[in-house]
């Protein structure tokens, strides 16, 4: 078995990669807000551990910086931001209803198989020690996308988005030992700004729709039903001056 021939650190990389995938599955089935946020934080932590291991095994000191960035951003800042927002919007104990959780988990398993298939040409080509984990990183990204598509609350959609970013970062780490540092910094900056914007959005959504259930966002559509017009409420008569 090839696994037994790898060094203990490479085996640890594979083990932690599998645990990252496991957290993705947990997030798929987790209905309550706070455990979802904590699971996301765990995913970030496990990802940072993998990055440190890869940095050690492949001798790429840049990755230590990336791992530190991941810890600061994905384990501390973003979960803290989401937690504070949940508390502020008084939704930390909300639990949404997933219709068929088992079906969802099986769909996740299907996505793992699909990513394995997609990653085959890459894995064959790569000579890196971590090449087996490329399929897992694609799976984490796709499961994040599934999370965004299927879940109804805004928090779950944001966590799905962040989980996608986790998967992408992971794929960069294991397929190319990380992208150039300036790109990583740019991506991290974008993710941080996106998280802040999401936070602002939650407040706007809550104020406007009185809930963070995105199924309620359905006023704009292509149906022939008359949409609310864009008249300004209480505005002066059309074309006139106040």
């Amino acid at each position, binding site marked *: 078995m090839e696994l037994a021939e790898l060094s203990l650190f490479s085996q640890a990389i594979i083990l932690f990669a599998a645990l990252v995938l496991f957290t993705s599955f947990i997030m798929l089935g987790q209905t309550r807000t706070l455990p979802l946020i904590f699971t996301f934080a765990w995913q970030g932590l496990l990802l940072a551990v993998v990055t440190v291991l890869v940095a050690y095994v492949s001798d790429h000191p840049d990755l230590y910086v990336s791992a530190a960035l991941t810890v600061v951003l994905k384990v501390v800042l973003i979960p803290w931001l989401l937690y504070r927002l949940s508390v502020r919007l008084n939704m930390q104990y909300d639990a949404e209803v997933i219709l068929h959780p088992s079906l969802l988990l099986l769909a996740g398993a299907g996505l793992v198989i699909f990513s394995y298939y*997609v990653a085959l040409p890459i894995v064959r080509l790569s000579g890196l020690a971590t090449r087996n984990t490329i399929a897992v990183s694609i799976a984490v990204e796709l499961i994040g996308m599934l999370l965004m598509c299927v879940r109804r609350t805004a928090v779950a959609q944001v966590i799905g988005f962040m989980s996608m970013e986790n998967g992408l970062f992971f794929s960069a780490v294991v*397929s190319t030992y990380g992208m150039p540092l300036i790109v990583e910094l*740019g991506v991290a900056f974008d993710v941080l700004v996106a998280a802040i914007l999401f936070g602002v*959005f939650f407040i706007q959504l809550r104020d406007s729709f009185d809930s963070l259930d995105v199924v309620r*966002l359905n006023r704009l559509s292509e149906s022939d039903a008359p949409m609310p017009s*864009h008249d300004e409420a209480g505005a002066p008569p059309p074309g006139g001056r106040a």
Partner: protein
Amino acid sequence: MTLLEITLLTPLVGGLLLVFIGHRPLGGWVNVITCAVTFGASLAMALDVFAHGPQLSGGRMFYIDAFNVYLVTLTAFVGMTSAIFSRPYMRHEVERGRVTDVRLRLYHSMYQCFIFSMLLALSANNLGILWVAMEAATLTTVLLVSLYRTPEAIEAAWKYFILCGVGIAQALFGTVLVYFAAENKLGADRDDTMLWTVLHGAGAGTLDPAVISLAFVFLLVGYGTKVGLVPLHSWLPDAHSEGPTPMSAVLSGLLLNVALYALVRVKMLVDASLQTNLAGHLMMGFGLLSFLVAGLFLHRQHDIKRMYSYSSIEHMGLMTFAFGMGGPLATYGALLHMTVHSLTKSAIFVTVGHASQLAGTQRIEHIRGLMRTQPAIGWGLLIGTIAIAGFPPFGVFISEFLLLMATMQSWPWLAIPLLVGFGVAFAGLFRNLQPMIFGEPPPGQQPVEANMLPVAVHLVLVLWLGVSIPGFLSSWFEQATLLISGALPR
């Protein structure tokens, strides 16, 4: 301080400044002046590139060649004219009470940051920086789409954020794959494997075909979402119609172009490595689909801005189709189309903004008699729509004609859906437009204060490009065509 640095830093500095003074009347003027300076610098840079050829700068971080320099100039120009329009328009919105002071500051500073991110995306040589700039462009505009804080606006902004976020994440994965393929062939010890110049110069067949085609699919999905290709387009009509009008003008006129530019850059890389024309065929397929579907959707619209957003989707589909087809004639036509569509669409949105202010609503069935009430707006809208529908002697007609010719040369039977699409779109636009312009105005409709100068300038430019393309512009296009498709037209 190179011209490129001036071009990039000016909007950034302006954005920072406007955070503090954006709500004062001075803020609007600062916005305009910043854009004017950016435009001047970009024009100078363009002339420089024209004289001396493509330039690398910033430690090979930035690359200006014939393809993106004219896009940079175009972006700065349309940004400037939209800023000129936006100044009194936003004042009016503040007086109406639709926008508070804080939001006005946000609006002005994000406007400049948006211009900055677009210029960064256009001039970046590093594929990763290109991605970061595209994402930044989305992030800066998301809050602006929801500026009015109505439920529809917030919904539109949320959809925009989520859909573009998902799309652009796929593009990041595509970028990672390109980096992987490049490292595989070029070796892992270099620090320049993400630079477009290096990848393009590496020669044909260097990058592994399986990985590169996979990367292109992801990049097409990712950047294609931002271009507005069907079926990833559903954020576009909402986002373009719910934001303030200057935002619609800039989003429709500029951001779509930048996304298409990114796609074409990537296609140039892929074509060099793949033996088959997979990239071209995919782009043609999605482009044609967008073109036809958007033309059909045009008929069903009740909101004037949504109608013109679908027109944007239609034209972007056409351009994607043309770039996908490749070949010098189609590429030249697509480049020309990028320019004229940008100018015309922004002019139309400006006019539509005034028209909706006049009528007090954006619903098509409630806007009537524009020609009677305020002929300037009526004529502006009429001429703009004629231009965008592809009538001679406007520039859009020339580019569409070139595309038709190119299609008939290489894919003759595809010319039929194209012609049908043109007809359908024309019918859709005019069916809705005619009662708006020539109908009976409702009682009590008064003219509004409207600065139609930017509109006039844009339309005159489009007319000029339709009648005779000036020499320097033509040779610009030719240089870009040479770069993209490897041959000169005719």
